[in-house]
């Protein structure tokens, strides 16, 4: 090339190179450090964030999970390493081997080792912790430290959701602090919140319902990019206003304000279905003990309309198999009992009932059922009341205080009741809410095949086979209908977009549907 061109090129090229060298580095994804992030909650106080003192509800565990960690964890897609880098299941021995990280320190500087894992398991077996059951079907028979950073857990019996229910939920506590502590609830000082998590507790106020977390600089995944997290108490009605005003960065919002929040520039996320509202039926009492009668009830209640009217469209109609249509475990062939009042009437007539003046009677007695529910289910109850009366079943609907309803259901002193529960991410919930004792369970053991399947799915370690079992369970359960799932409500959170909040796959830990995963706050 001629000297002139060379000159021109160098005059342009070199500055261009220099400029691009200056500009390019900032084009790579640099996460801006955030000094403070505020999360609003209407209850506020969920207990001291230590494994034995946080209140026995999802939000209590969530706050603790920023300070204490588990062997494995989950992000938006599935299991990820936490304190364990690798793990494998040894089928012949029914044991899990966890290879632990060697660069983890407790908040007080001590090194984390396999000894802490073994200690935690032994301690929590003798000092039961509500969120993790280490005895029984989900239990660990023995925990051995093979070396400083390898631990082997021998299970009591094959337990399919072990990683989900136990390894991903059990908060590991430091041996050097908890050793010799007889009463775990007596530990309420700063030593009780020494964990391995990305945040340390700087302050907690019970009466104000506030928490202050500060980033733990020596966290093994690197210093969290959010320096400080504040949990504050704001009433349910004021959270949307606080979000718009900017005094709060994230919080749960009612479905009605979703569009308003989006218009204000906030990001709105919705939880994968975790919770259902059920019509609990006293299947030990006549006439509800008859399968046909219960099926008639299902045909008589228009669950689609129920969602439209009582939930103003913010929900999904319930599937009689309990597992929601949005779940990977959903069986599309589950009988749905689409709204058919004529079919309902036919079933009742088949049982010997006759319509007299618009209501069904048998042997001269009018068919009347009592429906009880807590006040928050008032509209749902009124809707069901109306639908059943249209078919010809007289209903006496009453709202009562929550624990009074629970006590009556526990004592089988009811006909119909409305109750809701979560945990729908993992099929292990099915056995608990269908077969187990307690007012929050249907306590239905009359179908041997169903009972057998419910037990079998817990220990089926092969994913495909387990799915088959869960499919069968839904079909039989929907056929027998000891309780009817009415609807699944939709839940929303709104946030300012500074932190990528997400809903953990299958819920946080054992199935908590709150989008506060500590991984969102770590690079």
């Amino acid at each position, binding site marked *: 090339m001629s000297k002139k061109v060379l000159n021109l090129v160098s005059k342009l090229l070199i500055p261009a190179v220099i400029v691009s060298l200056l500009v390019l580095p900032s084009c790579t994804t640099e996460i801006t450090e955030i000094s403070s992030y505020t999360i609003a909650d209407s209850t506020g106080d969920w207990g001291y964030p230590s494994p034995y003192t946080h209140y026995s509800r999802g939000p209590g565990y969530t706050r603790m999970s920023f300070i204490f960690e588990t062997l494995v964890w989950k992000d938006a897609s599935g299991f990820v390493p936490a304190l364990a880098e690798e793990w494998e299941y040894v089928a012949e021995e029914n044991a899990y081997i966890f290879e632990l990280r060697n660069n983890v320190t407790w908040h007080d500087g001590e090194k984390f080792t396999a000894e802490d894992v073994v200690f935690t398991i032994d301690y929590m077996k003798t000092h039961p912790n509500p969120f993790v059951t280490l005895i029984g079907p989900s239990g660990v028979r023995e925990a051995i430290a093979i070396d400083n950073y390898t631990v082997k857990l021998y299970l009591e019996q094959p337990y399919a959701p072990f990683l989900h229910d136990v390894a991903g939920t059990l908060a590991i506590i430091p041996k050097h602090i908890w050793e010799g502590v007889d009463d775990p609830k007596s530990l309420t000082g700063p030593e009780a919140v020494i964990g391995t998590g990305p945040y340390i507790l700087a302050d907690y106020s019970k009466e104000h319902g506030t928490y202050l977390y500060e980033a733990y600089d020596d966290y093994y995944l690197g210093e969290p990019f959010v320096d400080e997290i504040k949990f504050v*108490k704001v009433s349910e009605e004021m959270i949307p206003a606080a979000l718009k005003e900017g005094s709060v960065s994230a919080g749960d919002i009612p479905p009605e304000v979703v569009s308003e929040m989006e218009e204000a520039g906030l990001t709105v996320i919705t939880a994968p279905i975790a919770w259902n509202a059920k019509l609990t039926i006293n299947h030990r009492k006549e006439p509800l003990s008859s399968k046909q009668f219960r099926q008639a009830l299902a045909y008589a209640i228009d669950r689609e309309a129920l969602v439209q009217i009582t939930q103003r469209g913010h929900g999904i109609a319930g599937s009689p198999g309990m597992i929601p249509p949005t779940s990977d475990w959903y069986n599309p062939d589950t009988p749905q009992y689409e709204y058919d009042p004529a079919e309902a009437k036919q079933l009742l007539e088949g049982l010997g009932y006759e319509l007299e003046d618009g209501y069904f009677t048998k042997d001269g007695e009018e068919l009347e059922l009592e429906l009880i529910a807590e006040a928050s289910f008032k509209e749902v109850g009124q809707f069901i009341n109306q639908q059943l009366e249209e078919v010809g079943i007289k209903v006496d609907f009453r709202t009562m205080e929550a624990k009074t309803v629970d006590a009556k259901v526990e004592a089988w002193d009811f006909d119909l009741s409305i109750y809701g529960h979560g945990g729908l991410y993992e099929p292990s919930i099915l056995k608990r809410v269908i077969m187990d004792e307690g007012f929050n369970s249907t306590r239905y053991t009359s179908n041997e095949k169903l009972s057998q399947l419910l037990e079998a799915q817990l220990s089926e370690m092969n994913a495909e086979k387990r799915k088959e079992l869960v499919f069968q369970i839904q079909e039989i359960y929907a056929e027998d209908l000891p309780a009817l799932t009415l609807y699944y409500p939709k839940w929303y959170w709104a946030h300012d977009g500074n932190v990528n909040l997400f809903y953990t796959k299958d819920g946080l830990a054992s199935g908590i549907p709150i989008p506060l995963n500590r991984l969102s706050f770590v690079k």
Partner: protein
Amino acid sequence: MFSKRNLVAYTIAFLFILVLNFALPRMMPGDPLMAIYGDEALIAMTPELKAQLVERFALDKPLWQQFGAYFLTLFQGKLGYSYYYNAPVLSVILGRLPWTLLLVGTSLVFSTMLGIILGIESGWRRGSRTDRAMLAGLMSLNGFPDFFLGMLLLIAFGVTLGIFPLAGALTPYSGLSGLALVLDILRHLFLPVAALTLAHLANGYLLTRNTMITVLKEPYMLTAKAKGLSQRVLKYRHAGRNSMLPVVTQTGIWMGRVVTGALFVELVFAYPGVGYLTYEALLARDYPIIQGVFLLVAISVLVANFLIDLSYPKLDPRVSYAY
């Protein structure tokens, strides 16, 4: 004035209240186990967990034994340990009590004082337009529940105008201290106090107004007027003082409500208070907290009544004791 008979009466009342406080919560259907742990589907109530909890809550011991234990700890000055809050009852209640006293105490003072003054002025001008307007206005205000007024004030001044904060007793972790902190607390206190004051204004007002009307007809008022005393002296020193008595009595009764009376306002403003604590404890069947709060209410009612008894002769020298 403070005779032995009086003391005996108060003691009997106190003991009776203690027994009631113990028995009533336990008569509610359900138990703490069900209430605290039963609701969460992710918690499996295993036999081991249940056994541990039953032991911790002493639910398996006979009632009289439980009461005995409660009575003994009470005399040691301890109020027991909360089932739900995992903390000593005394510390849970004391954490919130100052805020409750601040909130309800302030609004009680304002609503009583304002009610008395408005009642006096209204009664003095009975039948006039001012009187009728005040009567109508305060009666309609009385119709609104306190939380509704709270919501209106919060939306108007907190959300729309943005002058006042939306929640809490103070700005959490603001690092403020001294005067700045006091101002922050006052800013957070303003709307809830306004809501409670406005909601309860009518009580003091109506009572004072009615008593005022009766008092104004008294012969001594005519004498006072004839003496040529100023309007202010007539209204406040002569008529007002005599019209105050019913309100003072009422306030004494209300002292019992100071502790738990602001439940809904606490909810709306996310204000820490004993009212909401009581509500949550009732739902959770947290017997130790319920007993603790009821005890506090009982003591404050007894003390308030005692103080009223003492102050009555000073307010109205005509009152004497028949004992």
